């Protein structure tokens, strides 16, 4: 683009006198005649043309020797198509900015127009009188109507108005058109348009979660078309709706379509989300179930068989849901014979089903089954026997080790003064440990763990630490209160002891 003094010249311009010669041949002959003295320039000019031609001809695959002939013949014809061919790559300019500025202007215009319409619509809808006369006045108050005497022909179909084709005003821009060119905007639809986006979304969401099928219709790309069609059908009952012109309706509709495309969630997505939530539930329950099942099948009474059975029932139900839902996803849309899912959409559906079956196979089918009541009791009995045997063995070992200890002590010539050995089977283990601790040379350790008071204080400190970590404030409080009590009691006892020893 050449810019000289704000004026732009285009065409076959003579570089010297800037006259437009119309064609390349005329320009050349003009230059030879008028500006003959400038031989160098002429030569350069000719070369320029020649070079360009040669390059283009070479690209066409013609032998270079023929180039002269062809250029001559073309000169004779007086038309060189090579000049109109795409140029070889030279300078590159970005027009994005220009494009963007033009586009944004355009968009802004539409947005402003649409918003204006929406504001008017909102004003009209707000306390719209039901009485036709009052309603008309209210509408005119919001949007001033064009004087109908000024309009002779309908601006959209350019037919004249008469008794049978009466003039009507668009309620949104106030322009005049005939009945056939006007549409009735349903008031409910209009209200939905003016309602804030969030509200519309919320309502569509609740709609979708309760009954998924109508969503299918709504998310369909032709939904806006449908609503337009329904509007056209409703023309005869115009008084229930708002009469609008084609342009206004189109603006509103395109905005609606945009909004819908933003909020619309295809049914597949909803199904898939539900599927994922089922899988998550199952994943949460699985570890607990496996733990319970393993424990139960070993005959351990840690968990109850009934609890595990209810958990198993839950898991089964989840598996059934996952299976049926993934099947539904697989056959989604296949009932539509005209436009069945194809390509990537179909692939997606198949893969979701494959993933679901893989999940079921890997996670759910391999689950261990719970033992039956009878089997469980049997296992429990067996375990009890084993435990008995183990306890006996441990007792034997404990006795043996004690004997050995006593032996050792006797050898050293010492007699343990304090052995609290009870018959109680649960304490056998504990006591042997104490015995060991009692006779290790580390007396300091013995001291610190021997006093139950000190032991409990240590316990409490540990509990407090844990409770603090778990952010259980009131528990920390209760524990600290107890620790204080203990400490007081402990000091009191110490004091007492000292006094006793003093006296």
């Amino acid at each position, binding site marked *: 683009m050449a810019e000289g003094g704000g004026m732009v010249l285009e065409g076959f311009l003579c570089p010297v006198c800037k006259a437009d010669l119309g064609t390349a041949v005329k320009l050349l002959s003009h230059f030879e005649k008028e500006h003959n003295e400038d031989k160098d320039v002429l030569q350069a000019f000719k070369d320029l043309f020649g070079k360009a031609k040669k390059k283009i001809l070479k690209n066409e695959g013609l032998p270079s020797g023929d180039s002269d002939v062809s250029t001559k013949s073309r000169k004779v014809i007086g038309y060189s198509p090579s000049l109109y061919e795409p140029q070889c790559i030279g300078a590159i300019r970005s027009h994005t900015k220009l494009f963007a500025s033009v586009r944004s202007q355009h968009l802004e215009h539409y947005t402003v127009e649409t918003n204006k319409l929406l504001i008017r619509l909102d004003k009209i809808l707000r306390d719209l009188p039901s009485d036709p006369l009052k309603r008309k006045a209210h509408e005119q108050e919001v949007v001033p109507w064009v004087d109908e005497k000024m309009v002779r022909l309908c601006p959209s179909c350019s037919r004249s108005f008469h008794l049978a084709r009466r003039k009507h005003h668009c309620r949104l821009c106030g322009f005049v058109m005939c009945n056939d060119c006007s549409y009735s905007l349903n008031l409910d639809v209009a209200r939905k348009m003016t309602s804030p986006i969030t509200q519309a979304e919320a309502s569509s969401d609740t709609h979708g979660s309760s009954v998924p099928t109508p969503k299918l219709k709504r998310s369909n790309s032709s939904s806006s078309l449908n609503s337009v069609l329904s509007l056209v059908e409703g023309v005869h009952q115009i008084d229930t709706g708002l009469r609008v012109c084609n342009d206004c309706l189109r603006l509103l509709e395109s905005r609606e379509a945009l909004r819908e495309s933003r909020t619309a969630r295809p049914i597949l997505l909803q199904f898939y989300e539900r599927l994922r939530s089922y899988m998550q539930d199952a994943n949460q329950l699985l570890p607990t179930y496996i733990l319970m099942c393993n424990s139960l099948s070993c005959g351990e009474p*840690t968990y109850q068989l009934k609890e595990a059975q209810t958990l198993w029932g839950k898991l089964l139900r989840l598996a059934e849901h996952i299976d049926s839902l993934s099947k539904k996803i697989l056959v989604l849309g296949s009932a539509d014979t005209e436009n069945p899912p194809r390509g990537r959409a179909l692939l997606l559906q198949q893969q979701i089903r494959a993933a679901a079956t893989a999940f079921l196979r890997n996670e759910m089918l391999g689950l261990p089954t719970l033992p039956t009541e009878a089997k469980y009791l049997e296992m429990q009995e067996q375990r009890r026997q084993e435990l008995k045997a183990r306890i006996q063995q441990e007792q034997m070992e404990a006795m043996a080790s004690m004997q050995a200890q006593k032996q050792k002590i006797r050898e050293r010539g010492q007699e343990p003064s304090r052995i*609290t050995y009870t018959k109680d089977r649960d*304490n056998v283990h*504990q006591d042997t440990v104490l015995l060991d601790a009692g006779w290790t040379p580390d007396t300091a350790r013995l001291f610190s763990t021997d006093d*139950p*008071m000190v032991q*409990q204080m240590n316990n409490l400190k540990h509990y407090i630490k844990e409770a603090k970590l778990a*952010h259980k404030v009131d*528990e920390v409080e209760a524990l600290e209160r*107890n620790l204080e009590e203990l400490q007081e009691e402990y000091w009191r006892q110490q004091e007492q002891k000292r006094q006793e020893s003093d006296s």
Partner: protein
Amino acid sequence: MANRGGPAQRPNPQTQGKICQFKLVLLGESAVGKSSLVLRFVKGQFHEYQESTIGAAFLTQTVCLEDTTVKFEIWDTAGQERYHSLAPMYYRGAQAAIIVYDITNMDSFGRAKVWVKELQRQASPNIVIALAGNKADLANSRAVECEEAQTYADENGLLFMETSAKTAKNVNEIFLAIAKKLPKNEQASGAGSTNQGRRLQELDGSPKAAGNCCK
């Protein structure tokens, strides 16, 4: 706030009138199943090889009655003789106590009676005492007859149930019975101890607020 585990439901502040907090202590001879009882009540678990308690363990559990939420601060004391000196620290100021014995062990029942006497002498006069005959699943090697324990409990005004931590029999029931028997307002709770049945919250919706116009 962090999740407070356990099978009991979280109280719903809209419907719950008040929340009461009570200190409960478990006493009894060693290896009668005090810790197992608490573990079953708080976590719904049971371990055959429950280690013996050192000192005292502390657990909390919340139960919902019709209009009140009762939060138990449970002190599970060690049964071994050498920890006996700690016990007064825990039953002092407690609003409830469960004295546990083993139905297959007559000695443990005798020890339980000693605990009852000690509580009657030294604990708060309004303390709610429950007697639990644990290990009811081992009824075929029973040494303490149910009637005998029931009669003793009636004479001394104790709640009584035979429980089993292993099968969960009567575990929740005994705690619920205690919760029901505990006084739910400050006036009813006795003198002396400072933290008896503390009422933690007075909710806005209570009928006291006569100034409110709506409802």
